[in-house]
Each structure stands twice: as structure tokens, then as C-alpha cells.
């Protein structure tokens, strides 16, 4: 009689994560995204500060617009009490830290579609009957990537603001609020990650479909991020984000597992 190795969920997840983290570390895309997360706020803050007060003229209408640079370091992270988001212009308001929630979709989509495009999924699913392992590992890997990007964006904001000589005044908020705001954003990350994972496993090797679907689905929830994770976040915000993250991860994870079980993996 052939003896089969029995492995617990923890053992299986550990080996699965080992594979995913090994791949992540070998992936150029991962480092590019991390570099983007770090450099983007630095460049944006420095450039906007330099352009502060400059006037741009619309060549057709002749209307003059005065560009406003950031006045405070934390405008990149959230809206200060009584203040406005970075620069006051819509373009830069869209490029604040919350943009990471959408940027991480690029990583998840290409990471998962690569599994199916290369045929690696065949090797994986032949020896691993539990599709839940795959989904869980991808959510964890995506979460780590997203959390790292958030932390790097924060570091980039501090660095860029220090270079530009911006004020670090929290306008009555405390450092604890800032930490809780970042924690809330990190805890909210699984909500987006699980959506992106679900869309990606449904689209499989079609990377373009993964990306369009993920960005489209992500946009539906994107507007709630600044509301649920303000600069003045409290423990309640973190708790809410954590509960939402766990709920979405479990629910959409189960849906992703069903998709994998019911559809062709090649």
C-alpha cells in the first residue's frame, strides 16, 4: 500500500507562502512597485513645493490658475482638521497614499495570471487538492506587498516633506492618531486584496481582464478609504477596518475557492 503524507493546513500554507515569497523576491515587478511607492510621494511633494505659487495660463481661454503646493507633510496621508488634501488640486488629491490600494492590484493581477500563463498552476494544483491554500496564500502575499507599499509611501512622504521643509504639525491630532490611521489602512488592505484575488482567479491567464476587472471593482470601494481611515483615526477605525478586512478575506476567499473548484485550471 502506498503511504501518503498527511499535512495540516498550517504546514500546507507555510509551504505555499514559501513559494509565493520566493517568487515575490525574484519578481522585478515587486521591487518596481515598492520603488514607486517610496519615490512617488518624494517626487510629488518636492515638485509641488517647487511649483507652489506658479501661474499656469490656459492657451485657449486665457484663464490663469495659481498652483498651490502642500503646506503640511500629512496632506499626503489624509485631510487635516479644517484643511484640504495635498496641493488642493484634484490630480494630486488622487495621488495620495490611498492610491496604493489600486496600485497593489497590478501586483496581484500579474502575480496570479503569471501562475496560469506559465502553466505553473498545473504543477501546483496537481499536487495540491485544496484550492483554499492557494487563495489564502495569495491574500497573505498580496497583503504583505500592500502593507509594505503603504509603509514605504509613508516613509516617502516623511522624506519628501523633510527635503521640502514642510511643516509636520498635526493640527491638534496626536502621533497615536497617525499610527492608528496607518494601521487602519493596513487592516483595510485585505478588503481590496481579496477582491483582486477573486477577479484574478476568475480571469486566470487573461492578465488584461484581471487588471480591468480588479481596477473596476476596486474603484467601487475606493472612495470609502479616506472616510474610514482619516488622519484622526481611533481604535474604532482600526477595529472596523480589521473586521471588514477579515470578513472580506474570508467571504471572497471562499468565493475564489469555489471558482477554482468549478472551473478549468489550465
Amino acid at each position, binding site marked *: 500500500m502506498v503511504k*501518503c*503524507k498527511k499535512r495540516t493546513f498550517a504546514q500546507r500554507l507555510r*509551504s505555499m507562502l514559501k513559494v509565493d515569497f*520566493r517568487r515575490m523576491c*525574484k519578481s*522585478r515587478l515587486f521591487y518596481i512597485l515598492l520603488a514607486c511607492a517610496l519615490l512617488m510621494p518624494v517626487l510629488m511633494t518636492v515638485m509641488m513645493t517647487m511649483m507652489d505659487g506658479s501661474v499656469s495660463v490656459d492657451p485657449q481661454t486665457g484663464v490663469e490658475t495659481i498652483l498651490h503646493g502642500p503646506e503640511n507633510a500629512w496632506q499626503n496621508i489624509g485631510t487635516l482638521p479644517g484643511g484640504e488634501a495635498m496641493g488642493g488640486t484634484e490630480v494630486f488629491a488622487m495621488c495620495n497614499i490611498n492610491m496604493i490600494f489600486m496600485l497593489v492590484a497590478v501586483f496581484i493581477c500579474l502575480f496570479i495570471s503569471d501562475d496560469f500563463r506559465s502553466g505553473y498552476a498545473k504543477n501546483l*494544483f*496537481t*499536487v495540491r487538492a485544496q484550492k483554499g491554500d492557494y487563495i489564502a496564500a495569495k491574500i497573505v502575499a498580496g497583503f504583505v506587498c500592500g502593507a509594505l507599499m503603504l509603509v514605504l509611501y509613508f516613509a516617502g512622504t516623511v522624506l519628501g516633506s523633510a527635503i521640502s521643509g514642510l511643516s509636520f504639525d498635526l493640527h491638534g491630532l496626536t502621533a497615536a492618531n497617525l499610527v492608528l490611521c496607518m494601521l487602519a489602512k493596513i487592516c483595510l488592505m485585505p478588503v481590496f486584496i481579496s477582491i483582486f484575488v477573486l477577479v484574478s482567479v476568475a480571469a486566470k491567464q487573461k492578465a488584461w481582464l484581471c487588471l480591468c476587472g480588479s481596477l473596476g471593482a476596486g474603484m467601487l470601494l475606493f472612495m470609502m478609504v479616506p472616510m474610514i481611515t482619516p488622519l484622526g483615526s481611533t481604535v474604532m477605525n482600526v477595529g472596523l477596518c480589521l473586521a471588514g478586512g477579515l470578513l472580506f478575506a474570508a467571504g471572497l476567499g471562499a468565493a475564489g475557492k469555489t471558482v477554482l473548484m468549478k472551473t478549468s*485550471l489550465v
Partner: protein
Amino acid sequence: MAVNINAIEIKGLSKSFGAKQAVCGLDMTVPMGAIYGFIGENGSGKSTTQKMICGLIPTGGGSIRLYGKDYTDPDVRSTLGVLIEAPGCFPGLTVWDNMMLQAANLSIPNAEDEVIRVLKTVRMEGAAGNKYKNCSLGMKQRVGIAMALLGDPTLLILDEPLNGLDADGMRIMREVFTDIIKDGKRSILVSSHLLGELQKVATHYGIIRHGRMIREMTAAELDASCRTYVALRTGEMNRSKMLLGCRYARVEEDEAGYIRVYDRTTPEDLVTYLYQNGICVTEIRTDKIGLEEYYIDLMNGGK
């Protein structure tokens, strides 16, 4: 009392893609310790069957049991080694990195030693540092086989593993296959269109057509089923063929330029008959048809 457990036991397996029935009530038994040659035309359902065994596509009906357990059992699935269509490797990574990923996926202890062992088995240890995308077709195929061998699997499922291999590669694969099954506990299910190569190693055969198993037999049964024929050469091939055609029911000329007489006869009869008609036989031998000819006969409706 010892229970006889088969490596693979399939009953009434079905699968359809839209209106097309790819596999239709397929029954198949791969005994333990067998090299099972899975043969069929293009689109006959071989790859679909193999994908279903591997759990890569859902079945449309029927049952699949691996070593007596349901094929979805995670513990039995962890003992499989697989190469279906193309090796599943990341093109941007090196051969070594791809192998190490699969070793991590299988939770193999001493992964580096195991990867070196399988790469040596397929004579690819020298190319471990090459990027997978830069490997030739044959090298990729060897990497795929090495990947399937990782972790010493008890059941190997290989779809066209000999494609793109050179003569040396094929010889190595034959040695690897026979070595794997020598303890009688491991089995290999291999599909290939290279029937001559398959015949050199296979212990069992299954022939599939339009998604149905039309014949399953052992190598010994195939040997017994293969008809003997007399192959000869004469100084006047055209006249000989015509004369023999008048007397025997099936006379053909093969690619090597021999006249083959498939009817029940002896070389002595043929030599005497041709000599009586003024033709000298320059070469004569008796032989048996191979798997390839047997298969073609079967596909053409022969017995």
C-alpha cells in the same frame, strides 16, 4: 489477504466542452508497477483524461480512484508527479529557481540535494543556471520531466514527454521509466504519439478513440495479438508482388522496399512458389507487426 490496489481506476468517466463530448464513459485501469501507454489520435481525449486525473478540470461524471482513494484526496494527490502539455515554469527564472519553487511547493526536505538529483537524472545539471526561456525545446522537456520526478512521486502522469527529445534524451527517459517502476510500487501513465519508443518501455496499453477506451491490454497480450508476416526481396519486385497478390490475400510493400505477406504461410512456401515462377528470392525473414501497425490496423477497423 493482500488487496490488489490499482494505481488508477477510472469508471464511466465523462467530460464535455459545450456540445462536444471529449470523454465518454471511459473505463481505465492502470495497475501498480505499470508503465501504461495511453494511445489515441489527436483530439481523442487523452489529455482531457489526464487533466481530469490531475484535478485540473472538473469531471462531467464517473469516478477516478488513485491507489484506492478518491482522486480529490489531498494526501494521495501529493504523491503525483506530472507533466501535461508543457512544463509549468516561469520563463524569467532560471531552471534552478523553477525547480526550487516546485521543491518548496512539495515541501521537500533537503530541496537542493533533491533538485540536483533529478537534474542529474535528466542530464540537465549543467544547464541549471540558464534562464528557462533561453532553453531549447528538448531542454525544456527535460526540465519538465525533472520537475515531475521531484519528491520521488508514486504515480507519474506524463503527456507527450518524449516530444522534442533527441535520441539520447529518449534513451535516458527509457532508463528513467524502467528504473522508477522496478520496485513495483510506482506507476507511470504516459501518452505519446511516438509508438515505437513507447513500445520499448510500456507494460500496459490503453487505446482511446472518440473519448472511449477501445482496447486495454498488457504488453504480452499485444505481442500475442500482433500478426506475423514474411518480408522478402527479389530481383523482380513488381512481378513478385503481382504473383504473390494473386495467391495471398494481403500483400504490401513497406517503406524499406520489402514485400510483406501477412497471410498464414512460411518462408519455404514463398521461396518455392516464386522459384517455380522463375523468380529468385534474395532476402527473406519473418517478423511481427509493431504497436504502430497494430494501432493503425485498429484505427482502420482491423482486428
